């Protein structure tokens, strides 16, 4: 696992906190002005380009060798062993401390726009427990970040906390994405409860050319869903919210974390989705991430994925036969029956993903999403073992 924030060495802190790392191509393209970029002097082409380039009004320079920076200009050195910063990335500098955080990584499969730490649910398995803080400053910071992201970034995930707690400001963030990054798919992870207010949902109609809402639904009745999210009334709010989003012509994905009580009714949930929410375009069935609140509820939540396979297969078959796309996340291939492999995605973000020693002998390791880096034995299926050969070559 790589930390995404590090102490750095620097001189003359640049004035603007959000900066894009530039190489020659970034300069040539002219998409971003030098004032908002750090010229990457670690790049040999850049160093060979001659001194005139350095005279441009760069916000500063990224270098391992401070002497390479023009005298009197700001520079930053990222120490060995800290996270890797590359050309195209966007970093944020703490205003006083010598801290730098990565806000956008070019080429990563999981760049996020983090909206707030607050949440109105309190899910049993929350991987990132919410905090009741005023972090409304994030909105303008996000709007700035959006402008420095590559125009051909394939996708961004808007997340939290609960993004809809931003209210109208969430619309602002989405609108800025639509204006500045019209070709970037936006995936907003929300519990959907706030869309019980149809007017809020309506604000997003026609706002963005490619936006999907990822909304969790944990049961086919309120007793189950409300228990999982630890909030009475949440089920009815989310379901109403889903209808409000549909009325606002939004694309919707339903997300289901495969904790034990949910798995026990997963086929009923699939049926509920098809019968009542057939406009859903994608259903993501996700293995539990053993971090955050989940660890405290092991006995209530844990179910070996190998044991859920038969019922999971029923639910997947049911939905896919009905033209609702299904994906399985966070489940290594060895715990799934082979017919489900086609639905398994390499979903774990690159920076928190790993394989186990057993994986080294596995013939399908390349196709497998592996494990969370914070996986423990307790949270690992008994069935993990290297696959030695596959019965068919479907792919």
């Amino acid at each position, binding site marked *: 696992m790589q930390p995404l924030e590090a102490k750095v060495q620097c001189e003359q802190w640049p004035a603007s906190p959000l900066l894009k790392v530039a190489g020659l191509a970034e300069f040539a393209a002219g998409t971003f002005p030098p004032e908002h970029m750090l010229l990457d002097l670690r790049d040999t082409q850049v160093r060979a380009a001659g001194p005139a380039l350095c005279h441009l009004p760069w916000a500063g320079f990224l270098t391992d060798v401070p002497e390479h920076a023009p005298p009197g200009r700001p520079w930053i050195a990222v120490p060995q062993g800290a996270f890797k910063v590359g050309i195209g990335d966007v970093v944020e500098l703490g205003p006083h401390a010598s801290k730098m955080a990565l806000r956008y990584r070019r080429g990563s499969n999981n760049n996020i726009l983090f909206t707030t730490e607050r949440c109105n649910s*309190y899910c*049993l398995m929350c991987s990132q427990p919410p905090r009741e803080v005023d972090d409304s400053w994030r909105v303008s910071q996000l709007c700035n970040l959006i402008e420095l992201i590559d125009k051909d970034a394939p996708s961004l995930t808007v997340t939290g906390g609960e993004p809809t707690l931003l209210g109208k400001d969430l619309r602002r963030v989405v609108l800025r994405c639509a204006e500045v990054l019209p070709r970037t798919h936006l995936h907003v992870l929300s519990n959907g409860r706030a869309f019980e207010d149809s007017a809020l949902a309506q604000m997003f109609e026609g706002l963005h050319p490619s936006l999907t809402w990822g909304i969790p639904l944990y*049961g*086919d*009745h*309120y*007793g*189950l869903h*409300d*228990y999982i999210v*630890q909030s*009475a*009334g949440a*089920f*009815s709010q989310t*379901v*109403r919210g889903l*209808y409000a989003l549909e009325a606002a012509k939004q694309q919707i994905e339903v997300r289901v974390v495969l904790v034990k*009580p949910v798995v026990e*009714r997963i086929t*009923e949930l699939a*049926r*509920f989705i*098809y*019968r*009542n*929410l*057939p406009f859903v375009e994608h259903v993501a069935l996700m293995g539990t991430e053993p971090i955050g*609140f989940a660890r*405290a*509820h092991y006995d209530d939540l844990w179910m070996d994925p190998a044991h859920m396979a038969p019922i999971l297969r029923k639910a997947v078959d049911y939905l896919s*036969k*009905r*033209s609702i796309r299904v994906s399985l996340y966070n489940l290594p291939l060895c715990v799934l029956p082979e017919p489900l492999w086609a639905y398994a995605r390499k979903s774990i973000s690159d920076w928190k993903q790993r394989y186990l020693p057993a994986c080294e002998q596995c013939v399908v390791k390349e196709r497998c999403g592996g494990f969370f880096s914070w996986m423990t034995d307790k949270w690992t299926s008994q069935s993990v073992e290297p696959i030695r050969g596959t019965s068919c070559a479907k792919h």
Partner: protein
Amino acid sequence: MKFAARKAFVGNTAYRLLPLRFRRLPWDSDRVLITSMSGDWLITSRNDFERAVTGHLDPGEPMFADMESRFLITADPERSTLAPLLSQYRTRKDYLAEGPRLHIFVVSLRCHHTCAYCQVSRQAVGQTAFDMTESTARHAVDRLFDWPAKMLTIEFQGGEPLLRFDRVQQLTELIEQRNRTEKRTLRFVIASTLHNLTDEQLSFMRDHGFELSTSLDGPEWLHNLNRPRPERDSYRRTVDGIERCRRVLGDDAVSALTTLTRRSLDVPKEIIDEYRKLGFHSISLRPLSPYGFARKTGARHGYTIGDFLKFYEAALDHLLQINREGYFLEETYTRMLLSLLLTPFPHGYVDLRSPTGAGLGAVVYDYDGRVYPSDEARMLAAMGDHSFVLGRVEESIETWMSSPGMQRILGAGVAEALPTCADCAYVPLCGADPIDHYARQGDSIGHRPTSDFCHKQMGLFDTLLQRWEQGSPADRDTLEGWALRATCREGVLETA
């Protein structure tokens, strides 16, 4: 930790029943089918059901959740939502808001056939007095666009519409011309024997995207017996027509209907095999209706619904067998009933709706300028009973909707409000057919215990539910595959 246990989320009030209906399973009297007001359903033991109705379910038991998620019961209103139930119901009744989508134009009553059971009051080929006039055609087109439906299916019928193809062409062009400003989605269908089809007619149909519906009653001997021509070549002419149409319009452009006579009932396999032989992937097995010449010759051609249901079971067995062999062949009415059982979506079929599709889903513009709510109403009028005439093409559609005929239909047109139907577990999946009941029983409301319509529907639903429940995985897959096919083809069944 401030986490609460599961029982903290049960809610604060006892559960309540939502509107529901049930039926003891004919093949297992210890179990019942329960349906919600929108047609979602559950099969369970009668004991459990009785516990549910009498308030003895425990919120922790799976049965509670099963009934709650199918909207058969509801728990704490503070925590529940009925939006899914209301959406299901509205979806099933979706066609109400738009008004009729199926518009049948009878361009001529003339026909070369002399079918004994003819459902249309055909006229001899030379009788041009039974053709639609240009003035009638123009008025009919004006009325067509008075309806609000965004999708309009225009079906040309006869008699044999090819005998007045110039009128078909003229109507098509008038409608398309008008649609340049109206911007509706148009679909053209022609119901024809396909005899004497010319290349010119074919290319016109191709250019205007026609779908064709023809009649094929089974193997050659049966078809020719059912559809006599002096030359005894009805089968050959129809099959030739089908092949020519496929060459010009594509394989999917032609569909065929089977009218079942007494003779047909003995040979379900032969009829189905004929369709397979001819490369069809869809068959429509249609029992005779009590109209037109069919009623007059009833003694010779008639059979009971019980006879039909026996035939149907044998036919279904054979169809499932063929599908098991890997050849996709569906029965269209079965597909439609299964889609009601297995999907939340509405169907486009006008004959199985509540409120009835007559006048609300379909309108017939007859050759002589009279307007009817359905083909059946037109047949009745041809036999001298004008109870269901809506009016004439020169009149406004408002006049039609407030005509005594339409009032008669609406008064008996809502199945949920009809005696016996009101309590029937299948009623959310069924329809009201006041004109059929009027024709058979002399009363548009009708008497369910002796209703052929009711016997047929109950028989089919029971059969399909049992097959679904007890069938092999392969057969369930086949039935499900039919139901899930997304196509909603409207009205084409009721032709030829």
